[in-house]
């Protein structure tokens, strides 16, 4: 298989656009150190393009293969019940390697999300100024609205209708009674009464 075709497949996998065949091709070629090198270069390039934080290069695939290689030897030699125990050990070590990788990636994701949040802030305040005076403010959280728009239970009847407003009020007032930190809990409680 030509180098170019492989690189094209790699790129497709990276962009999540690879078909079954391409994925197989890449997986087969993945034992090759050069291919893995290309892969991690692509990762770095992609991270730069997306302005993600750069993480130090970490070859999880290699780590997993190595862990397998290390563990598999005693497992093969073992007989009877020990054999399955050995398998368990392999599975465990692979899990650990994968979990460690996932944890790393998650951290990266969180950091990225924070960045996104910070850059978003001016945008968030934007509609307030540009858009129609009051309504703009409500748009932002409009999609999180439940059936309780405008503080009134809508489309629900019976138990919830009677009990929920009372619970909301009790929670708000109890917070307000306790809270000395600011006027915020008071304001929340007051806003519940504005119907």
């Amino acid at each position, binding site marked *: 298989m030509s180098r170019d075709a492989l690189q094209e497949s790699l790129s497709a996998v990276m962009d999540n656009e690879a078909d079954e065949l391409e994925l197989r091709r890449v997986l087969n070629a993945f034992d090759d150190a050069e291919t893995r090198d290309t892969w991690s270069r692509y990762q770095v390039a992609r991270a730069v393009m997306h302005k993600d934080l750069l993480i130090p290069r*970490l070859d999880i695939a290699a780590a997993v293969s190595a862990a397998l290689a290390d563990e598999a030897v005693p497992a093969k030699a073992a007989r009877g019940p020990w054999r399955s125990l050995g398998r368990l050990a392999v599975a465990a070590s692979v899990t650990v390697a994968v979990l460690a990788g996932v944890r790393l990636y998650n951290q990266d994701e969180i950091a990225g999300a924070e960045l996104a949040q910070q850059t978003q802030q001016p945008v968030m305040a934007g509609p307030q100024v540009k858009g129609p005076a009051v309504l703009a403010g409500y748009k*932002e959280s409009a*999609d999180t609205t439940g059936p309780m728009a405008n*503080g009134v239970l809508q489309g629900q009847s019976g138990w919830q209708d009677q009990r*929920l407003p009372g619970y909301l009020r009790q929670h708000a007032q109890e917070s307000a009674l306790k809270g*000395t930190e600011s*006027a915020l809990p008071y304001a929340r409680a007051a806003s519940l009464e504005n119907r």
Partner: protein
Amino acid sequence: MRAIPLLTLLLSGWFALPAHADEAQDWLTRLGRAEQQQSFQGTFVYERNGSFSTHDIWHRVQDGQVRERLLQLDGSAQEVVRLDGRTQCVSGTLVAGLGNSRDAPSRALDPQKLNQFYELAVIGKSRVAGRNAVIVSITPRDQYRYGFELHLDRETALPLKSLLLNDQGQLLERFQFTRLNTSVVPDDRELQPSNDCTPIAVANSKAPEVQSTETWHMEWLPPGFQLTNTSARKDTQTKATVDSLMYEDGLARFSVFLEPISDASVTETRTQLGPTVAVSRRLNTVDGEMMVTVVGEIPIGTAERIALSVRGEKKPAAQP
């Protein structure tokens, strides 16, 4: 050996906290002190999904006493007067038996504790109510709570603006001063409650305290949340005993309500009102079926998980 670089990578995540985290802690410490030391008066707005209101506030620190009065300027004249953090009177409908709960000392903002569950950082400066402000972001370290963005007055560290944000950075509520005066101390007349303000003592005596028959515990709680209050009251309509428990992590709060239900048609529900979420679920106990309702300023997923983890236990015979 391979584990070592991995481990250092993981650990470096914790140590790589931005240097201005300390600065943010200092600002929050100043904020905690400001309300105990600084007299002020001003006007603020509060906005959440479906509600926008304006309020006046008078806050006086004199002879070691903190006296505060809040009054809503639009719609009904909601009013609260507080003395040293204890509510003296409220207007409007107070939930019967509310003040029965023992006056747990309200805890001051503790940046050290907050730092365990939130990432604190100074992220810039702004201008609010004609005053220069510093922006402190309080970002949760897990997915179980919301984040805040506080704009603190550069001169006094009073909160000029407070935004509650969900994990996608969407605004859930806004609290913002439009006018703040820290140079004129409010006088007695301004701090005097109006006639519509019902003293707490009177409101309390109407609802005698009741004993709950079960003890409740949560099999799972989001890390850092502690029980700060439990109470039981008899509902005036249904005559049923409603137990309530309140938890907080130093910033966010939620309440758990437990009430017996007899009606089989009652459905479970989940709903969101601005920053506040309400999730209710059925629970089978030895006493029969109960409805568990979690209400608080927490993500809906957290509330759902808490509602699922409530367990009840029959109390040994009531104490004489």
